[in-house]
């Protein structure tokens, strides 16, 4: 334990709460409060109702939730596959080449996501790669944005993986593919699931690139929230936001359950 004395421990807790509550917890509580309100003119919201939720879980909003879930799942899986593949390939490269590849994958993070959106839009608006107006352009943009996280987390885990496992497996007669499938990937599973969760959460909340790309029949939830608040429907927007939060948290929880079962050490 870092802090030993009882008094100091209380002080640290107090500082933590003072910092944490207003910065992290309060805004979320406000959204939660607003989602049940019809008016908010004094300290607390008033005119409690669940009508916003009725609107937020059917029709357009339900469609948007499905859109978001499908987009985030597909984008995370694509990102995980390419990121893991790239990390595995990079591990076999010379140091200098590996650095170059790493830098390439971090690029979408270094560029503002609006720019990634614009770039995707420009790149896929002409035949033969005409994806503009389809759902795939949204999914591709999301994949590009989150692959960096998948790649980073898997390559970090790969660097920590003891080569003795791989060598023991090879000496026992296992082909490289068998080693990858039965030894390396299972040992990487904790980081893979962590990366999947991160990618999913990021994709669920992505707005700026999506705004430039989404076709009318593929509207993710954040766009809907933005539209609602933009036209002044704050309370409806809050309800949709709570739905988005809940859905994301539920998926993250499920992923972390897989992770607990996958960490043996």
């Amino acid at each position, binding site marked *: 334990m870092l802090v030993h004395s009882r008094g100091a421990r209380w002080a640290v807790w107090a500082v933590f709460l003072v910092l944490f509550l207003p910065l992290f917890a309060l805004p979320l509580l406000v959204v939660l409060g607003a989602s049940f309100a019809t008016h908010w003119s004094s300290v607390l919201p008033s005119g409690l109702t669940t009508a916003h939720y009725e609107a937020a879980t059917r029709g357009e909003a339900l469609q948007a939730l499905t859109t978001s879930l499908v987009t985030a799942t597909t984008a995370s899986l694509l990102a995980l596959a390419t990121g893991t593949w790239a990390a595995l390939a990079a591990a076999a490269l010379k140091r200098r080449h590996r650095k170059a590849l790493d830098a390439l994958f971090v690029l979408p993070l270094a560029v503002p996501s609006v720019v990634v959106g614009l770039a995707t839009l420009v790149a896929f608006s002409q035949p033969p790669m005409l994806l503009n107006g389809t759902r795939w352009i949204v999914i591709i943009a999301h994949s590009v944005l989150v692959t960096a996280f998948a790649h980073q987390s898997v390559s970090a885990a790969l660097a920590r993986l003891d080569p003795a496992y791989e060598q023991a497996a*090879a*000496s026992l*007669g296992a082909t490289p593919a068998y080693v990858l499938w039965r*030894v390396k990937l299972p*040992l990487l599973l904790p980081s893979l699931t962590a990366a999947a969760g991160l990618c999913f959460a990021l994709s669920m909340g992505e707005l700026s690139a999506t705004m430039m790309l989404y076709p009318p029949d593929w509207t993710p939830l954040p766009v809907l929230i933005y539209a609602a608040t933009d036209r002044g429907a704050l309370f409806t927007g809050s309800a949709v936001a709570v739905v988005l939060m809940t859905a994301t948290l539920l998926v993250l929880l499920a992923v972390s359950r897989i992770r607990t079962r996958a960490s043996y050490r």
Partner: protein
Amino acid sequence: MAPRPAGGIRFDHVTVAYDGNVVLDALDLTVEPGEVMALLGPSGSGKTTALRAVAGFVRPASGRVFLGDRDVTALPPHRRGIGMVVQQYALFPHMRVADNVAFGLKARKVARAEIRTRVAEALEMTGMGAYARRHPRELSGGQQQRVAIARALAVRPDVLLLDEPLSALDAQLRSGMLAELARLHRELPDVTILYVTHDQVEALTLADRIAVMDQARLRACGTPRELYRAPADAFTASFVGGANLLPVTVGSGGVSLGDAEIEVDTTGAARGASATLCVRPHLVGLGDGPNRLTGTVGEIQWRGATHRLYVDVAGHRVMADVRELKAPPVHGEPVTLHFAPEDAVLLPAGVSTGEE
């Protein structure tokens, strides 16, 4: 175990270099089928590199590696048909003991029924039958090492590579495992074993022959007895069992150390040449006798059954291990040492690289 074509390992002028840094220099060594060969040397001597060249984890810059009469130099590790056990066990943490042992068999697509019997057999042989359902993290270090050995034996390799397999165990477990390995080899006399170690006791106990390595080169190779009784050079003498290495000048029918005349077999040494005299500490006696040396006690250590005396003789420190003394000499006391002429070996002059 079914009879198979002879195994054996042959290094033919194998050189390994990392970034121009030679870590194994033109190694020529043959391990006969069914033989236990220990590669003994300090860290950085190239012994592990030699083993990794057999396993296929390093690619020689030049030279060839043969397993039996197969040239495996260009083969990937999984096609070499070896078994390997490393110091840190490297058991797969996500598999149970039985699945760890079955791994090599599944990878080789052995029929399921046969996998079951061979896993049971390998676990039985290493005394781990009762632990098949455990995970590696639930086992002690010694048990994990047994599983690692079972895993390597389950694929029935012709060649078993052991890379410092006992280094991570404490002293008592180590001597137990040493006996265990000797028993396994008696039960599997056809398996050729290459055993890398820095521990001379392990090498002397287990090996049919020992290859002593230092600074990327093979220094000596022979049976433990040959290397111990008649080491070829000072490095071998000091690394295989402790040795007194005394710089002497060759005379007629003997050598001289300072003003002391020592009777020893000088066959092959030119008169007047300088040489190194090698005497094992436990063959040096206290008191008067042949080849007497006089000096003063520099240090004395009580080791239970023996006393070790460090005696300064003409500016050189001579170690003597003698049976526990009732009245041991004290520091600075003059004493007389002796040893039998046949217990000393004359080596070409060389710098001693280590004591003990």
